[in-house]
Every structure is written in structure tokens, then in C-alpha cells.
């Protein structure tokens, strides 16, 4: 007689499943606990580290950037919130907000001189001059971090790379590829002429003149008719005018 599936078999199967589940849950719990414990240790270690080196982080730019790098690797952003324990611990959030405000200040003050495009290096120099009293040195890395925080304001602060240099843009001007190429070219001697642009970039007259005129109207370029060869030079304060000595 063939045995038909009975209620007993089903019950055994269910009991087995339950057993497996229980064991599985146990293992998972142990693992999570372990993980939590590790995280807590890590966090306290990081806090300890930050507390111990608080002054170094605040005063020493190299150390600061290494600290940021380390935080980034483990997925912690000390700037994410001003209310977090990092801010309480280091005041590091404030540091970058303060820097941000000063950067906006400098960009506005120099806008009429450079058309709202400033060399990162020069911005950094001006920043250091401005902060002389604070005596905490500031690197380009810090500037970049502070500027990235300014983005949430939607004010169009942006860092653009032109050739080897980094420029900080504080006006909503859209620079296209042609403009970038001209700026790149101007980095050598600080100015370009229409002929040079045509020759070096193999552009037509129209294209060269058009791009230069736009840059002029945006206040990013200045003309110079004073050279003895009589050729008009277009100077770019953002790559060549130094207000700091």
C-alpha cells in the first residue's frame, strides 16, 4: 500500500525549516553585533584621533588634507553637517563656511577687475592676506572644499580647469570650448592677438574675433593697443593680472 502524504510529514518539514531559520537569524545577529561593535570602536578611534590632533587639523594644511582623504576613504564627510560631532569636536565645519564667505567676498571685490574669473592660486593668496590675523594657513585644497560647499547656494560658483591652471568662476557666464582654448593659450604670455589665435588654433577670422569679442564683453578680456607693432592685444586678467606680490 502506497503511503499517502500525511500531516506528520508536513509538520516535520515545517519544524526543520523553523530550526534553520532560527540558526540563520542567530548567525546574522552575531555578525551584525560584531559589525556594530567594530563600527563603534572605529568611530571612537576616529574621534580620539581627531581630538588628539585637533590642533594639527586646524593649523596644518597638509595634515588637514590627509585627514580629509582618510575620512573620504572610509565614507565619512566631516563637513556634511555643522551639527554633527565633527563640528563640535573640530569646529571644522565653521572653518569652511568662514572660508566660503571670504571667498565670495574676494570674488565680488575683484569681479570688476577680472570679470568674475579668478585664478585659484591668486584667490588663495588673497585669502591668506585677508586671514593674516587668523594665522591658520589655507591651501588650494581648502579653497576647493569651501567652494564645493558654496554650490548648495546655487550661486554658480564653479571651478574650471584651463590647461594646467584652475580658475574659479563666480559669474554665470557660460564658457564654451573656444573660450577655454583661448584662455589656455593666453596663459603663456598673458595676452593673445587675433593672428595668434588664428594661427595656433587654425581658426577662421570670424571664429577668432567672435570668441574674443564675447570674452571682451563679459569683462574677461581687456584690449591693449599700445604695443609698437600696432596689433591689438587681448589681455586676460584672470590668468595674468596679479594683485598680490
Amino acid at each position, binding site marked *: 500500500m502506497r503511503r499517502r502524504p500525511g500531516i506528520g510529514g508536513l509538520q516535520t518539514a515545517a519544524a526543520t525549516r523553523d530550526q534553520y531559520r532560527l540558526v540563520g537569524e542567530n548567525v546574522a545577529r552575531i555578525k551584525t553585533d560584531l559589525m556594530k561593535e567594530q563600527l563603534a570602536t572605529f568611530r571612537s578611534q576616529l574621534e580620539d584621533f581627531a581630538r588628539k590632533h585637533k590642533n594639527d587639523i586646524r593649523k596644518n594644511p597638509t595634515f588637514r588634507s590627509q585627514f580629509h582623504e582618510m575620512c573620504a576613504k572610509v565614507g565619512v564627510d566631516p563637513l556634511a553637517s555643522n551639527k554633527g560631532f565633527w563640528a563640535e569636536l573640530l569646529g571644522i565645519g565653521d572653518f569652511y563656511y568662514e572660508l566660503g564667505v571670504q571667498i565670495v567676498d574676494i570674488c565680488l571685490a575683484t569681479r*570688476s577687475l577680472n570679470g568674475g574669473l579668478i585664478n585659484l592660486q591668486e584667490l588663495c593668496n588673497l585669502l591668506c592676506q585677508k586671514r593674516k590675523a587668523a594665522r591658520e594657513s589655507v591651501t588650494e585644497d581648502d579653497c576647493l572644499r569651501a567652494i564645493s560647499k558654496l554650490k548648495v547656494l546655487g550661486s554658480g560658483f564653479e571651478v574650471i580647469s584651463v590647461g594646467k591652471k584652475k580658475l574659479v568662476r563666480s559669474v554665470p557666464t557660460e564658457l564654451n570650448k573656444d573660450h577655454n582654448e583661448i584662455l589656455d593659450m593666453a596663459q603663456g604670455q598673458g595676452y593673445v592677438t587675433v593672428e595668434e589665435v588664428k594661427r595656433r588654433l587654425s581658426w577662421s577670422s570670424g571664429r577668432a574675433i567672435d570668441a574674443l569679442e564675447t570674452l571682451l564683453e563679459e569683462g574677461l578680456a581687456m584690449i*591693449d593697443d599700445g604695443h609698437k607693432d600696432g596689433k591689438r592685444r587681448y589681455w586676460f586678467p584672470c590668468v595674468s593680472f596679479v594683485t598680490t606680490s
Partner: protein
Amino acid sequence: MQKLGDFKLPHFFNYPPYFTLQPVKDTRQKQVQLWKELILDYCRTQKIFVIGLEDDFPLFSNSAIERSLSHEARDIFLSGLVSDGRAEWMDKGHKKCLILWLRIQDWADCILRFVKDNGLEDSVMTVEEIRSGIESRGTELHGMDRTVLMRALRMLEQKGKLAMFKGSSADDEGVKFSA
């Protein structure tokens, strides 16, 4: 940093495009502003009262970068000062410009301070004495332009702070300060 005597020149003085009038409005405004400040500053430190447009005024050219201001540019910068009330054309042809790094009113205040500091109330001085006498040595009045001084004195005279009278010769005028 480039210097003219003991005067420290600003950075833009070494940047060639500032010697060409800029066609774009905003850039031009800033350019004119910087030049106006430079001219006033320079005149104040060097005690210069009159700039001739055709003269070799040291600020009008920079040999280090081989640039100089066109006549038009000079006229525009100085006219900017004139409309700010910091300068006056001395002739219709805009050939000479009187620079007032202190306004006439400020010069008048200067004179009153000088009178008070030296206890000269109720005393008599000649105009020349005010400009080049021992009393004014070391003050801003020393070596000041005669035209400017005369205008400041007249202003004070109208206010009843002093009385002016003619001396024996035409260029020897006297001033009596009132208490």
C-alpha cells in the same frame, strides 16, 4: 613693485591694457576709477596741484612696459575727477587741470585748524607766509598752490572768519584772522 620716488605704484600701472581706453562699459568704469584714485593719491603725496595734459606727467607713461596714455585717455580720467569735484579745468581747451585732493572746503578747515593750533587768532599774516613761512612748515598748508589758497581764504572771508587786505605791492596780500 615699481616706485616713482617714494611713491608706491599700484599693480595695474604695470598691466598694459590699463593704458588703452576700454570699450566695454563696466571695464571702462573700473579703469577710470583706478586711474582717478591713482592720480589723486600721487598728487597728494607729491603735493602736485596742476597737471598739464601735454606735459611729461610721470603717471601718464610707464617706460617699463612701454605704454603711455593717449590724449583722449588723459582727458577722460581728469574729466572724471572734475565731475567728482576733485579737480577743475583751468582753461576751456582742457590743457591744464587743477587737482583738488582736498576740496576747497577742506583746505579752509585746514587753515582754521592751523590758526587755532598756533594761536594766531587776531594776528596778521601775509598770504606768502601761510604758504612758505616757518609757522606752516610741516603742515599741509606748506607749499600749497596759491590759487587754491586764495580761494580757501576767500571762502573763509565770506564766512567772516578773516579779513583780507592789500599790501603795498599787488602780490603781497595780507590776512587778519578773527577770533
